C-alpha cells in the first residue's frame, strides 16, 4: 500500500463542506464497506473537491461540471459491485446538470446522490445557484437574484428517485445516519444537504438555519412506502411537505420506496447473468486473443 501524500483541504474556514466530509467519511467507515469498493464521483465546484479530501483508500472520480451522474452511471452499470456515491454542487446538479439529474431518476440505479446545497456557485465566486430564492441578495451578488428557485426534492420526486431526504451540514451525526440510510437504500437516493457557505451566502447562514430546522422524526413522519398502493399517497404527502420552507425547515427522510425495481434489476430481465458476470468482470481475451465468439453473428449475415 503506497503512502498518500498530504492533501490540503482548501475550503474556506467554517465552510459547511467540512461537515459533509466528516459525515461521509464516518458513514463509509461505520457501514464497513471495503474502502476500495467505494467510488466517489464528483462534479466541479468547491463540492467537487471532496473525493481528494477523503482520507481513506476509496477511489475518486472528479469529473466535469454537471456531468457526474453520467460518469457514475457508466461506472455503476459496468461494475455493480462498487458502492457509488455522487457528490455534487447545487449549481452542478440542478443548473448545468439538471438534465442528468432528472433522467437519473427515470433509471433508479442503486447509487447515492449528495447535493452540497449552498445557494451559490461557490468556486466561481458566489453567483446565484438554482436553489437561491428570487429577490434574495447575498453579499456576493450585485443585484437581487432574478430567478426563481427550484425545489430539488420535488423535482427528484417527479423524476423517480426512490429515497428523498434532506440533511444539514452542521449536524454531522444526524447527517452521517442519513448518508448511511441513503447508501443502504436499494435504488437512487437523494440527500440534499443544506450547506452554509460563509464566504458568499450571508442569507442562509448557520444562525439562519439553526433556528428553522426541525427533524421529521419529531413530527412522527413516516416516509416508507410499504406497498404499491401506498405509493401515490405517500408521494403526494412528501411533495407537499417538501414545499415547506420559511420559518420552519424540515430535515430527514421525506420518502422511501424500495418496491420500484432498480435499473440493475431491470437489466437482469435482458441479461440473466448480469449481476454475477457484469461487464467489468467479463473475460474478453485469453492470451491476447478475443474470447468473444462472433461466429453466429457472422453466420446470420451469410448469403
Amino acid at each position, binding site marked *: 500500500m503506497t503512502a498518500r501524500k498530504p492533501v490540503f483541504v482548501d475550503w474556506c474556514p467554517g465552510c459547511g463542506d467540512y461537515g459533509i466530509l466528516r459525515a461521509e467519511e464516518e458513514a463509509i467507515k461505520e457501514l464497513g464497506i471495503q474502502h476500495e469498493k467505494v467510488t466517489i464521483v464528483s462534479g466541479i465546484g468547491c463540492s467537487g473537491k471532496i473525493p481528494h479530501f477523503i482520507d481513506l*483508500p476509496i477511489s475518486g472520480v472528479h469529473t466535469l461540471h454537471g456531468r457526474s451522474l*453520467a460518469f457514475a452511471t*457508466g461506472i455503476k452499470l459496468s461494475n455493480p459491485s462498487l458502492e457509488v456515491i455522487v457528490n455534487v454542487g447545487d449549481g452542478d446538479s440542478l443548473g448545468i446538470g439538471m438534465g442528468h439529474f432528472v*433522467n437519473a431518476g427515470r433509471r433508479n440505479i442503486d447509487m447515492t446522490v449528495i447535493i452540497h446545497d449552498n445557494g451559490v456557485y461557490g468556486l466561481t465566486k458566489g453567483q446565484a445557484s438554482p436553489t437561491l430564492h428570487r429577490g434574495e441578495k447575498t453579499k456576493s451578488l450585485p443585484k437581487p437574484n432574478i430567478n426563481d428557485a427550484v425545489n430539488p426534492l420535488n423535482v427528484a420526486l417527479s423524476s423517480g428517485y426512490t429515497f428523498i431526504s434532506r440533511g444539514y451540514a452542521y449536524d454531522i451525526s444526524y447527517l452521517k445516519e442519513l448518508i448511511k440510510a441513503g447508501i443502504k437504500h436499494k435504488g437512487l437516493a437523494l440527500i440534499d444537504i443544506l450547506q452554509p457557505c460563509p464566504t458568499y451566502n450571508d442569507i442562509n447562514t448557520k444562525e439562519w438555519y439553526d433556528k428553522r430546522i426541525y427533524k421529521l422524526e419529531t413530527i412522527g413522519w413516516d416516509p416508507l412506502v410499504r406497498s404499491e398502493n401506498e405509493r401515490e399517497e405517500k408521494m403526494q404527502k412528501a411533495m407537499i411537505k417538501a414545499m415547506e420552507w420559511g420559518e420552519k425547515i424540515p430535515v430527514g427522510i421525506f420518502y422511501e420506496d424500495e418496491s420500484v425495481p432498480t435499473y440493475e434489476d431491470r437489466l437482469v430481465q435482458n441479461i440473466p447473468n448480469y449481476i454475477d458476470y457484469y461487464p467489468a468482470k467479463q473475460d474478453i481475451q485469453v492470451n*491476447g486473443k478475443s474470447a468473444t465468439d462472433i461466429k453466429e453473428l*457472422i453466420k446470420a449475415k*451469410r*448469403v
Partner: protein
Amino acid sequence: MRYSWMIGGAQGLGVDTSAVIFGNSISKAGYYIFGNREYYSNIKGRHSYFQVVFSEKPVHSISSKVDVLATFDAETIFQHFTEVKDVMIYDDSLKNVTVDMVRSIEPEIAEGVKEELKKNAFGFSVGDVVKYVESKGVKTIPVDYSSILKKVADTYHIPLSVVERAKNIVVVAISLSLFGIKEEHLRNAIASEFKNDLFVKFNTTAAEIGYSLVQAKYNLPELNVGEPRIQVDGNTISAIGKLSAGLRFQSYYPITPASDESTYIEANQNLDLIVNGERRKGGAVVVQAEDELAAINMAVGSALTGTRSATATSGPGFSLMAEGISWAGMNEVPVVITYYMRGAPSTGLPTRSGQGDLKFALNVGHGEFPRIVIASGDHKEIYWDAIWAFNLAEKYQTPVIHVIEKTLANAYSSFDEKELDGNVEVERGKIVKPEGGYFNRFEFSEDGISPRAFLGDAGIFHAGDEHNEEGHITEGTKNRILMYEKRMKKLYTADREIPEVQRVNVVGDGQVVLLTWGSPKGSILDAMPLLQNEGVKVQMVQVRMFNPYPSDLMKKLLSGKKVIAIENNYCAQGAQVLSERTGIFPDSFILKWTGRSITMEEIIEGVKKVMQGEKRVVLSDGA
C-alpha cells in the same frame, strides 16, 4: 462485367426491404454486390432509393448511371430519369401524372426536372418522361400494378391494402427476370425476409407474376460461390467488430446514422464467450442516454472500471461530446467514439453522407492531448478498425475516434466470409492488479504510458484538473510540465510503434496519386482498371490514420508526384492535414459535398478533367 440497378419509392413503402431481397437474390446467384441507400430525413412519404451494383468480382462503389431503373411511383421517375441507361420499369397508370402533381417532390428539384424536359421539348408528365428516355434509347416496361395486386389479393382473399407493398416484389421480380437470375433465388430470399407465412405466400405469388412478364435481357450466368459470403451494412459490421474486440458497454443517444449500431448490439447483447476452452454467456450493457453529453461520459465512466466501452454518434452528438473527450484525454481513459459522419454543418443533411468533420474530430475538445483518429474505407476495414480502435485506446490510454461515413453505414456489400478470419488480437496495454491500498494511476514513465488499474482494485484518483501521479490536483509548474509531456509523449510512442504502412493503403503505381480517405476508396478502386484501360495510370493513397499521422511515409509516397485529392467535402480537409504535416500541397482536387457518394464514373471523369488541366472538379451526380 458490372451492372447497376436502382429502385425508388416513397419512404415507408418497403423500398429498403425490396432492395435487400434483390441484392440477396443476386448474391445467391453468385455475384458480389454493393448497395447504397439514399433517403430523406423523414419517416413516411418522401422519396428514397436504393442502388445495387453487382459483378462477378467484388464491387465497392455505385454508378452515375443505372442499367435498370425499377419504379412504381411518379416521383422516382422524375428524380431519376436522366440516370437510366438501359431499361425503365414503370407504372402504366401514372402516364398523365405531371411533376407539379407530385406534392412530395421538392420545388427546387421539380424546377430542375422541368428545365431538363423543356430543353428537350417534352411536356412534364410521366408519359413525356417515358418518351424522353425512349428517345435516348432506353427500353421502357410499363406495368399494370393494380391488376397484379388485385390478382394477388383475390388469390388469398385479403384486402388490397395488405398487398400494397407487393408492388416492390413485382418490380424486383421483373428486374431479376430481365437479368436472367433464377426465380428460385428470389423465392428463397422472400422466404428468409418475411417472418409471416401469409406474407411469404402472397409475395411469392407477386414474384411469379412479375417474373412471367418479361424475358431475360442480360442472361447472367449462375456463378459458383466457393467460399461462404456475407452481406452486411456498415452499422452492423462495426457492431460485430466491437463485440469481437470485447466491447461490454455502449451508451448512445439516438441519431441517424449511428443508432442502428447500438440497436444491433442491444439486440445481440447476450454473447458467446470461450474462456479457457469453456463456453459461457457474457452480456454487453447498452444504455440509451438522455443526450450525448451523458453518452460520452457514461462510456468514460465505464472504461474506468476496466470495461471496453464505447459510444457511437454523428455530427451534432459529437459536438456535444467535446468536453467529455477532453476529460478522457486528461485522465488517459481508453474510450472509443465511433463517429458516423453525415452531411453537415448543424443538422445539415442528416440522412446523407459527408466528410466535412475530419478536422473537427482531430481537434475536438479544448486543450492538447492525444486524440487518435482512424477512418475506414469499406466494410471489411470497418470490422478490423473497430477492433484496432480498442487496442489503440487501451495501449495508449487515450480516446480513439473511429470515423465511418453515413454512406458506408447504410450501404451494404458482400464479400468472402474469410476476410473476417484471423486472430482477433486483444491488446490491453499496461494493466496491473494492485491488492488494495492507494494506487498511483498517473506514474511518470519513459514512454508516457502508466500502469493502469481499475476502479474497485485500489484507491485511485482522477481529476479533470491537472493532477499529480496520484491523481490529486496540483498546480505546481514542475508537475505540470512533466505530466503534460507524459500525456503528449504517448502520441510519439504510438507514432514509433505503429508501422506507417499500417496507416496508409497504397494500391497501384504511377506518377499520378489519387489521395483520399474513407468511402471514396471504393469508387477509386473500381475506377482504377478502367482508367488504366484509357491509358491513365494512377496510384491510390488512402490515409487510414490521421493521428498520429504517417508523415514520413506520405512524404516518400507523394514527393515529386502529381497529387489529386479526392474527398466528400469542400475544403479537402484530409489534404489540409497533409499540408500541415508535410508541407505538401495537392495539385488539384476532386470534391463533392452534395451528401451523395462519389460514383465510379465521377472518378474516371474527374481524373480525366484534371489531366486536362482542371484544378478543382466539383462533382454532383446522384439525386
